């Protein structure tokens, strides 16, 4: 847009300002070509112009006082060298100073002191308790319920055993912690136990309506050494979504929907139960303080480590030839169908070879015993095919196969 009309349009404001009462607006309205000379601000332009040196200080509408370019000498960037020096110095100075006598080293076992230091014993205010948790409560101190740490430790050990055994049997474990700040706990536990994690909202229906919610999310088929196997593409296209075999929930209070779905799908659950939480929502309750991230981190890592141990045992057993899980029935069925198809293909190939032999001998005369034999084999195979189609129930059957099956009906 050409701002020739600037003076007219913005005239009111321009005239209102006390200092802007010069020639510039009038000049902008003029039409003659050689009017008031225009001074440009850029020194380069100034040098290029070299005209009308008699009146260079007239303020222009578009002119702006250019900042004098003040160039400071640029210091070389030594950030990297500085950083490396600092790291080196830190490394060198590590042993300087007093020798701290370490009296405490964390052990693998869960101790009551560890649980207490991580604030696992602090429940909620006594007025908001859930009486079903009475057996986990030790007493009331300063108005809040104190969770009995013996109970916590016992239940935590039980839960850890469950996680370990499920991991050992090749189950799919899911760690859920949807409160802010629980992401790291959940992801770390899942990484250790080779499990799944969830740190965002549970989409309602992820288990009960998984056909609508989870399709297309990649799944792979692995063997007993956890190496992916090819050749299951068709099965992966058709199969239903996965359901976890064990769910560990750090905040059951916010995940009622998920726990409800798990119970509907007969999935055992482990949950951290504070004094105000309903313990019957989960299969295995761990009475502890679910508002302390420190406590959750302890419990999450304990369970993650348990899963890690289970996975390790499973892999070792698989190496020794002992497999601790069965192939799921749908995969077994798929493999059986594949094998059956291979058999037919082989038979068809044999037939073709036989037919070509006979046609070569009889020179087009295909009547006789050979044909009847062919048709018998065909009928037999068609019956088998029909059964197959029924069994697979719109499993991957090519249009040609389907058409053939319909024709035999």
């Amino acid at each position, binding site marked *: 847009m050409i701002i020739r009309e600037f003076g007219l349009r913005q005239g009111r404001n321009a005239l209102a300002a006390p200092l802007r009462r010069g020639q510039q607006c009038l000049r902008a309205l003029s039409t003659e070509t050689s009017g008031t000379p225009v001074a440009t601000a850029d020194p380069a332009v100034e040098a290029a112009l070299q005209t009308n040196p008699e009146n260079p200080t007239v303020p222009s509408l578009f002119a702006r006082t250019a900042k004098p370019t003040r160039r400071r000498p640029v210091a070389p960037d030594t950030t990297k060298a500085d950083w490396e020096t600092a790291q080196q110095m830190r490394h060198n100075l590590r042993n300087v100073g007093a020798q701290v006598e370490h009296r405490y080293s964390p052990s693998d076992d869960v101790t009551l002191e560890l649980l207490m230091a991580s604030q696992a014993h602090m429940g909620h205010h006594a007025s908001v308790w859930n009486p079903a948790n*009475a*057996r986990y409560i030790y*007493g009331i101190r300063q108005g809040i319920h104190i969770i009995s740490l013996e109970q916590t430790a016992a239940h935590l050990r039980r839960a850890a055993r469950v996680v370990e055994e499920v991991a050992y049997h090749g189950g799919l474990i899911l760690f859920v912690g949807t409160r802010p700040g629980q992401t790291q706990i959940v992801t770390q536990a899942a990484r250790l136990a080779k499990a799944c994690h969830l740190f965002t909202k549970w989409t309602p229906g992820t288990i009960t309506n998984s056909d609508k919610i989870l399709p297309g999310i990649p799944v792979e088929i692995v063997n007993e050494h956890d190496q992916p196997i090819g050749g299951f593409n068709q099965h992966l296209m058709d199969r239903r979504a996965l359901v976890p075999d064990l769910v560990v929930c750090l905040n059951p209070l916010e995940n009622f929907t998920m726990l409800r779905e798990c119970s509907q799908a007969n999935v055992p659950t482990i949950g951290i139960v504070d004094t105000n939480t309903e313990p019957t929502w989960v299969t295995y309750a761990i009475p502890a303080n679910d508002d302390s991230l420190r406590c959750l981190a302890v419990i999450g890592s304990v369970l993650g480590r348990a899963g890690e141990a289970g996975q390790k045992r499973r892999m070792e057993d698989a190496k020794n030839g002992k497999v601790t899980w069965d192939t799921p029935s749908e995969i077994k069925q798929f493999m059986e169908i594949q094998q059956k198809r291979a058999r037919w293909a082989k038979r068809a190939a044999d037939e073709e070879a036989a037919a070509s032999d006979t046609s070569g001998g009889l020179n087009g005369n295909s009547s006789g015993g050979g044909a009847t034999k062919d048709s018998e084999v065909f009928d037999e195979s068609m019956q088998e095919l029909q059964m197959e189609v029924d069994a697979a129930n719109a499993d991957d059957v090519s249009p040609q196969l389907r058409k053939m099956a319909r024709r035999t009906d």
Partner: protein
Amino acid sequence: MVRGPAQRQVRPARVYQTVTTLMEHRIKPRLAVQQPVWYKVVESIPPSEILTRPFPPQHRQPNPRARKASRLFQPQKLVYKEDELRKKFYTDHPWELARPRMIIEMDGKDALRCDWSKGLRQPGMPLSGECVVQRQMYLMENVPGITEDTAYDQVRKEFYKLRQEEEIERRIAQEEARMVGAYFGQTFNQVGMKLEDQQFERWKRWATREIEKIQGEQTAAYSSFDASEDPEAADLDVDSLREDLESTANIPPA
């Protein structure tokens, strides 16, 4: 978050029984339900019993006059003798609460390493109100015939003495350090005064700017007329403002 009363759920605890029933059903004999991965696990590690009402841990002598049976099953208050002593000490010495405390423990068994028969100073533990309470407890339990007040007085005096020693040590250390050229920065009072002065300066700059702005507006308003027509009216306001400003700025900081 406001929640309604929690619903009891039956199924989670009975997963194993449900799946067993499913697997053993006879409705469609040819339809086989595969055993879930967790089946053997839950079989060997059953969930704990939760909905039975336990007798809670007892922390006080049973009251023979208590008549309400329902109170029998409620958790009891945890009350210790130290609580009273602690309360009394900190009521008497509230500024002890303002001192920094060390809350780091090594392995959770630090209290067992203290021997309160030897005095208030314990290894790895700075002197604090907790020392007084623990020492008092020790005296009350171990010295025959001592009352609570006597023990408190005794320990209190020990405590004062130690605190005084600490103070003196700290002062002397400070003086020595100053002597050899240490500089400990400004005191809290000095820092506060400095901040206040900064605020004053900032306000002065702001006020000057505001006055200039008002003056500019006035000039602009009267510029179409003769500027010398009514100088008093225009200047009066600004002058008074400036006087105000100067008088305020010249107040010496309290």
